[in-house]
């Protein structure tokens, strides 16, 4: 009954096709990618001017500030994750693809993270140094961001997928997703704080690792289900 086409496309080639296209279209609209980065930098640069330039105060606030700014910057970029695909109809084609949708959205989310989260992490040591965070804590901060920002992107992806067919999705995403990202924020800043206080950070990292593992394995299913609902509207 199930006669298969000789030229049927395998899973890896489909993922490869998606990967290439995502990077290509991101490259073509690269000024959009700069938005969250610029936001991230501006928030952190303005903070000492607005609150207090005291090194003692800033070094205390540094981890939390970098984390909050990273969280908001990622959130800012999320509403475009599926928006243009929805608008031009290519989301339908992704849903109709015979290969598992959750793997396709996992690839999409990871690309999104590598284009928004990763640059933030690269910038964070410079900005944290500017906030007088001691150099020995910079690797800890970067590592928490490295483990935490993919979680934000993936959880945010669920919100983006649910709201993609709505007009004012942007605000809704924040409302839906921000509460879910609070544990990531708490443990992200908590880890750096423990490091500053000279405590062991292994436990904190274990919990962050758990959150990352859960987000990586479970959220693609939620995103795929949400996209199917949005497309069949």
């Amino acid at each position, binding site marked *: 009954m199930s006669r298969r086409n000789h*030229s049927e496309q395998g899973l890896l*080639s489909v993922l490869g*096709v998606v990967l290439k296209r995502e990077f290509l*279209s991101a490259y*073509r609209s690269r000024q959009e990618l700069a938005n969250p980065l610029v936001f991230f930098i501006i928030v952190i640069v303005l903070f000492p001017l607005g609150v207090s330039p005291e090194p003692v105060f800033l070094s205390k606030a540094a981890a939390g500030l970098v984390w909050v700014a990273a969280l908001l910057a990622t959130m800012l970029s999320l509403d475009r994750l599926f928006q243009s695909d929805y608008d031009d*109809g290519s989301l*339908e*084609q992704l849903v109709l693809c*015979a290969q598992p949708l959750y793997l396709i959205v996992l690839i999409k989310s990871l690309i999104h993270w590598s284009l928004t989260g990763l640059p933030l992490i690269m910038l964070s040591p410079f900005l944290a140094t500017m906030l007088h965070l001691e150099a020995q804590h910079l690797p800890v901060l970067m590592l928490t961001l490295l483990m935490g920002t993919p979680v934000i992107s993936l959880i945010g992806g669920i919100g983006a997928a649910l709201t993609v067919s709505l007009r004012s999705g942007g605000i809704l995403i924040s409302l839906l997703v921000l509460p879910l990202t609070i544990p990531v924020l708490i443990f992200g800043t908590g880890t750096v704080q423990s490091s500053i206080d000279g405590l062991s950070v292994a436990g904190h990292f274990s919990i962050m690792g758990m959150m990352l593992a859960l987000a990586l394995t479970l959220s693609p299913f939620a995103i795929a289900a949400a996209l199917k609902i949005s497309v069949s509207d």
Partner: protein
Amino acid sequence: MSTALLKADKLTCERDDRLLFSGLSFELFSGEVLQLEGPNGAGKTTLLRILGGLFSTFEGVVNWKGQDVRQCYSEFQQELLFIGHKSSVKATLTPLENLRFLIGLQQSVKEGALWQALECVGLAGYEHVLCRNLSAGQKRRVALARLYLSDAKIWVLDEIFTAIDKKGVAQLEALLVEKAQSGVAIVLTTHHELAMPGVRQLRLGQVSE
């Protein structure tokens, strides 16, 4: 006669408290062209989306080769070409890149075949122009280039002739006839008068009580 490739059994669909169709049954055999007719809002697009598996709030069953589509969905998807009224063409990519992606989701295609397909739809020389700089008709042609490449056995085409000029329409009709003869089953909607032989019509918009 073998079993129908696609069989709709007593489809009933309601949208926004309005009954679009009820008890709608039809069969589609390999090599057939079925045109859905009816005024705007009669439910043509909804029916096509139901057939393609993109719309799930309906009653009734869609069978594919005698099996409920929901039970053999990934096999069905492999055989399905769906072109919706959103053309799936990304403005920031070139026609070549768009086509490579759209076809690549379903089947592997040689690079030369992509160029050939674009030439067939009259986009020779536009391969590397960003789609945002193309006209509406040209964008649609990028999506339609898939018709020249697809191996799918069931084509579900929603308003594919929109914004296409007369010569293009005639060319597409010839292609559809040729593909139908080679065994592809085609369901389409259009407000054009089709000049193709052997098109079966299904009228929507008259709800049977």
